[in-house]
């Protein structure tokens, strides 16, 4: 068994003057306090990476900075899937008895620590250095390619994609820590500046500063218990040029394995936390995971299905699109919000029933996938 015993999250947006280690430390301190633990009780650390301050031993650097001497520590790098990949590893580590309390932490001053161009250039390097990067693509262009194909195959429109941006913004309006606080409409998304068509500015997540952390423990430390019920990964390719066809997607492979390991069906899921780097990412993943039929996710958004009071609340903090994206911490905020919902601590965002949650992370260009089920136990 493994439990998410504590969570910590900073606001996302501008943290002028904060380093990546500052943001990681802030989130880590919040998560450890939330779990009711002392720093000395943390015996494992998993951390992500920082594009602003790259280091070959970031977990050790963080442990020294934070003031703990763990028995197990290293960094993990799976792009946007890093947060859930670390959680999956922490789950296996505590189950195997390697550690009792693993701190999972990510944080980066990606917005104020470097220029936006530097971020875009750094991230475009997920492309192939010989066969893709020289052509001048950007991350939005990689996803723009995916979007054009998916829209062609399943009849989605740009207005359909815009619905996901509007939904994430509506959710962010209820979270004080979100980067954006102004409501938007489909018209606003359609009128926003073209970035890599069919994707426009409001189809893309922002660059943010922020940090997120949680503690994965062998035993529960608080009355409200959230355990990892099952998880699985799939890695089908790195570069979009080498991506498989739309009929053999990594998300479908990962969710099938995760359902098997958790022994649950999609119809059991009460809350969803799905990676949303772009509107197309969210639209596709919802359909890949079986949370909507092919081409029908946007209609479900319009009908309120994924709203806070809907049948399957989705990313109630606002997701990457509107809470913000600080790199590894970005998608970790999805898990923090899920744990808050499952423990009844989401305040004005609280949903009726979050007893079983599905989380999904994606790294690269739909390259690396982690699916995970969390369950509230009494």
């Amino acid at each position, binding site marked *: 068994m493994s439990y998410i015993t504590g969570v910590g999250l900073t606001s996302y947006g501008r943290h002028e003057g904060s380093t990546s280690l500052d943001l990681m430390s802030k989130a880590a301190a919040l998560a450890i306090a939330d779990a009711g633990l002392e720093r000395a009780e943390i015996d494992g650390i998993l951390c992500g990476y920082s594009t602003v301050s790259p280091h070959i031993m970031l977990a050790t650097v963080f442990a020294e900075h934070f003031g703990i001497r763990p028995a197990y520590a290293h960094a993990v790098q799976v792009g946007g899937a890093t947060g859930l990949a670390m959680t999956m590893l922490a789950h296996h580590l505590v189950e195997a008895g390697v550690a009792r309390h693993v701190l999972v932490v990510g944080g980066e001053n990606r917005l104020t620590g470097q220029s936006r161009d530097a971020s875009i250039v750094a991230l475009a390097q997920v492309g192939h250095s010989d066969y893709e990067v020289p052509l001048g693509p950007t991350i939005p262009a990689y996803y723009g390619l995916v979007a054009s194909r998916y829209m062609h195959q399943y009849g989605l429109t740009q207005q359909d994609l815009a619905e996901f941006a509007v939904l994430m913004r509506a959710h962010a309006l209820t979270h004080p820590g979100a980067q954006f606080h102004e409501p938007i409409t489909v018209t606003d998304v359609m009128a926003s500046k*073209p970035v890599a068509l069919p994707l426009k500015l409001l189809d893309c997540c922002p660059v943010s500063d922020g940090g997120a952390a949680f503690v994965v423990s062998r035993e529960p430390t608080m009355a409200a218990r959230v355990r990892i019920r099952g998880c699985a990964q799939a890695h089908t390719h790195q570069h979009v040029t080498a991506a498989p066809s739309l009929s053999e997607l990594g998300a479908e492979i990962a969710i099938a394995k995760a359902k098997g390991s958790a022994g649950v069906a999609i119809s059991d899921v009460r809350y969803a936390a799905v990676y949303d780097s772009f509107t197309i990412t969210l639209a596709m993943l919802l359909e890949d995971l079986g949370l909507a039929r092919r081409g029908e996710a946007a209609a479900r958004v319009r009908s309120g299905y994924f709203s806070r009071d809907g049948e399957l609340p989705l990313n109630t903090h606002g997701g990457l699109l509107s809470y913000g994206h600080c790199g590894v911490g970005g998608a970790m905020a999805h898990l923090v919000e899920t744990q808050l919902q499952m423990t009844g601590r989401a305040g004005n965002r609280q949903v009726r029933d979050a007893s079983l949650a599905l989380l999904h992370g994606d790294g690269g260009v739909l390259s690396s996938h982690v699916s995970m089920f969390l369950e509230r136990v009494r």
Partner: protein
Amino acid sequence: MSDKPSDWTRGEAAILYQSCRSCDKVQYFRRDFCAACGSTELREVRASGKGKIYATSLVCRAATPEARAHVPYNIVLVDTAEGFRMMAHGAGDLAIGDDVVARFVPFAGRIVPYFEKEQ
């Protein structure tokens, strides 16, 4: 080295791919072995430059000054006649499914494949 065929990634106006003598699979990203079967018996073959548009994205926001001078430019994925997929530039009017043929154009200080509708 001089007798080795070269391609656009090394400054030559050509598209190369590798064909495995052992399992007949083709691959676009150059390696010393076949990614399907592991064989090192590979042929370097020059592609015809013909194919079909699989996906497109018009880049309107570039990240480097060199690329910014070219915006907007169309990034395309092409399913080539030889059976591999490649990324390239393309004409602005291309749609998914169009039959295309490649020529080579300058971009950010080098040459890149540029696909247009087959006449």
